C-alpha cells in the first residue's frame, strides 16, 4: 500500500503543470541557472531514473533534501511529528472516553428516548466540521470565559528548550519533573484534543451501538441474564468486552480520519505540528517535503493497522499468530 501510494504521489507530482525549479528561482531566472539547479536536483534525468533514485533513497530512510530551504526533508518532520502524534493520541483518548460508553449505553436502552438522543448526537456530531467545533470552543472557553488558552503548545513563560528530549511535551515535562510546565502543556492540549474527541466520538457511538446490539442478542448474554447477573454487569462486562474487536478494527481505520481532522485542528489552534508544515511547504512549492510528509502519513497509517492486528491477539485469546 505504501509503495503504491508513493508511486502515485511521485507520478502526480511530476506530471502536474508548474516547474518546481522555476518556482524556487523565480520565472525570470537565466536559463543556465535553471539548468544548473535542475541538474543539482536531478530533475534533468528521465522520469523513470528519478523514480528509482527516489525509491533508492527511501529504502535508506532518506527522504531527500528540501528544494526550497537548505535542509533535509526529515529534519522539520522529525521536529514537528511529536506534536501531531501527541494531539492525535489525546484526541483518540477523548474520542474513546466519550464514544464507547455512550454507544454501549445507547444499545442497552434500545429504542428509548435516550437511545434516540444519543443516536442523534452521533449523527450531528459527525457532521460538525472539526475546525468549526474548535473555533466555537475557542470562542466560549478562550474568549468569553477566558479560562483556556486557544493557541500553541505552551504558554509564554514555559520554555520548551529546557525539557525538549522526545518532542512529546507531556512526557518531557514529566521526565524532568517540571510539574508547572506539565500542567501548562496539558492545559494547552485540552481544547484541541477535546475538539477532536467530540467530533470523532460520533463514529464510535454508532459503531459501538451497532456492535453491542448484535452482541446483546447472543446466547451468552441471555445465559448471563438468566443466571441473574445484574444488567449493568451483563452489558458493560460481558457485552462490551466482546464488542471491542470490531471497535479496535475501526480504531485502526479511523486513525486516518483522525489524522485528517488533526490537520484541521492544527490550523485552528496554531498547533506547530506536521500538518502545518505540510501546508506551509505547499505554499512554498517544496515538493520533496510535501512528498516526505505524505510518505510519513502513509507510514503512520500502515503502522497503526499493523499494531491493531497485533492487538487482536491481546484482546481476544482465540486469535493466535
Amino acid at each position: 500500500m505504501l509503495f503504491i501510494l508513493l508511486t502515485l504521489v511521485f507520478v502526480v507530482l511530476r506530471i502536474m503543470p508548474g516547474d518546481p525549479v522555476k518556482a524556487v528561482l523565480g520565472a525570470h531566472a537565466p536559463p543556465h541557472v535553471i539548468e544548473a539547479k535542475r541538474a543539482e536536483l536531478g530533475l534533468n534525468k528521465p522520469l523513470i531514473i528519478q523514480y528509482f533514485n527516489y525509491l533508492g533513497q527511501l529504502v535508506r530512510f532518506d527522504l531527500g533534501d528540501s528544494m526550497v530551504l537548505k535542509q533535509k526533508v526529515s529534519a522539520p518532520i522529525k521536529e514537528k511529528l511529536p506534536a501531531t502524534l501527541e494531539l492525535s493520541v489525546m484526541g483518540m483518548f477523548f474520542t474513546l472516553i466519550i464514544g464507547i460508553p455512550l454507544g454501549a449505553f445507547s444499545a442497552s436502552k434500545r429504542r428509548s428516548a435516550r437511545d434516540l438522543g444519543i443516536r442523534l448526537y452521533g449523527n450531528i456530531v459527525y457532521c460538525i466540521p472539526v475546525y468549526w467545533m474548535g473555533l466555537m470552543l475557542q470562542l466560549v472557553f478562550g474568549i468569553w470565559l477566558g479560562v483556556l488558552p486557544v493557541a500553541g503548545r505552551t504558554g509564554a513563560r514555559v520554555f520548551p528548550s529546557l525539557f525538549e528530549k522526545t518532542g512529546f511535551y507531556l512526557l518531557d515535562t514529566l521526565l524532568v519533573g517540571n510539574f508547572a510546565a506539565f500542567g501548562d502543556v496539558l492545559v494547552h492540549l485540552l481544547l484541541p484534543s477535546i475538539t477532536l474527541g467530540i467530533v470523532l466520538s460520533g463514529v464510535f457511538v454508532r459503531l459501538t451501538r451497532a456492535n453491542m446490539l448484535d452482541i446483546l442478542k447472543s446466547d451468552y448474554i441471555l445465559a448471563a441474564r438468566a443466571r441473574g447477573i445484574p444488567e449493568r454487569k451483563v452489558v458493560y462486562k460481558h457485552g462490551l468486552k466482546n464488542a471491542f474487536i470490531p471497535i479496535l478494527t475501526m480504531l485502526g481505520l479511523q486513525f486516518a480520519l483522525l489524522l485528517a481532522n488533526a490537520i484541521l485542528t492544527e490550523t485552528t489552534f496554531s498547533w506547530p505540528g506536521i500538518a502545518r508544515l505540510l501546508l506551509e511547504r505547499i505554499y512554498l512549492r517544496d515538493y520533496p517535503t510535501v512528498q516526505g510528509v505524505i510518505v510519513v502519513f502513509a507510514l503512520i497509517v500502515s503502522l497503526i493497522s499493523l499494531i491493531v492486528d497485533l492487538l487482536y491477539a491481546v484482546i481476544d485469546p482465540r486469535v493466535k499468530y
Partner: protein
Amino acid sequence: MRAKFSPASAIGRPFKLLIDANRKYGLEWWLLVIGTLIVLFIIFLAFFPQTLAPYDPLDQDTGPQLSPPSRENLMGTDNLQRDIFSRMIYGSRTILGVAFSAAIISSLAGVTLGLLSGFLGGVIDRILSLIMDSIYSFPGLILAIAFAAMLGPGVFNITLAVAVIYIPTYFRLVRGQTLSIKEELYVEAARAIGAKRWTIIGRYIFPNAIATVVVIFSLNIADAIMTEAALSYIGLGLPAGIPDWGMDLSMGKKFLPSGTWWMVTFPGLMIMILALGFTLLGEALAEILNPRLLER
C-alpha cells in the same frame, strides 16, 4: 376494491402514506423526511439567491463594518462590510455545485472502473484494486489537500481534488457487487445465448449493481461537502470573489479574538446543517432499502 375518488381522500392519501410509512419504518422514516427537507431547503436557496438574498454577496456597502446581527443584516456584516446572510445564501451554490459534481465525477469513474475490474478480473483487477485500496486507506483529506495544492485554486480544480478521493468508495462497492452478480444464473444464461460482453455488463450487471450506489451517493455528498469546506477553510480551494462558506469561516477566524462570533458561527452552522441533511437522507435510505438492518 378501489376507493371512490373524493377530494378528501385525494388530500388524505399522502398523509396516509406518511403515517403508514411511519408505522412500517419508524424513526428512519422521520430521519428521511428531515434530511430531505434540509436538502431541499438548501437547494432552494441555491436556485433562487437573487430573490432571497437582500444584498449582493460582493457588495461592500451593506452596513457598518463587523456589525453584529441586526434587522438590516440578519447575520451581521464582515470586515469588508459585506452582508453575511446574503453570502450564506450565495455560498450554498458553490458548495452544492462542487459537492454534487465531485460526487458525480467520482461515482462515474468509480462505477465504471469497478464494473470493468470485477467483470474482467485478472491482472487489471489486481492492479486497480491495489491502487484503489491504497487511496482508500489513506486519509482522504490529506490526499485532497495534496491534489488541490498541485492543481491550484479554481472551482473545477477543487471539484477534481474532492472527486479523486471518493473514487475508491464506489469502486470497492461496485466491484464487490459485480463479482457476486457475475456468478448469478441469469448472467450465465445471457452468456449461453451468446450475449456480448458489453451487453452483459450494461444490461445485466450494471442495473443490479447500481442500487447500492444510490445510498452511498447521498452519504458521499455529505462527505464531499465537508471536504470542500475544509479545503477552502485552509485556503486551498477557491479564488477570492466566489462566496464560499469555508472561506468565510477562515476569514472569521481572524476576527474571532476580538469577539466577532457571527462571522464564524453562521458559515459553520450552514456546513453542518447541509452535511447533516445528506447524512440523514443517506442513512435513512440505507436502512429502508436494506431490511436486514432494520432490526437495529
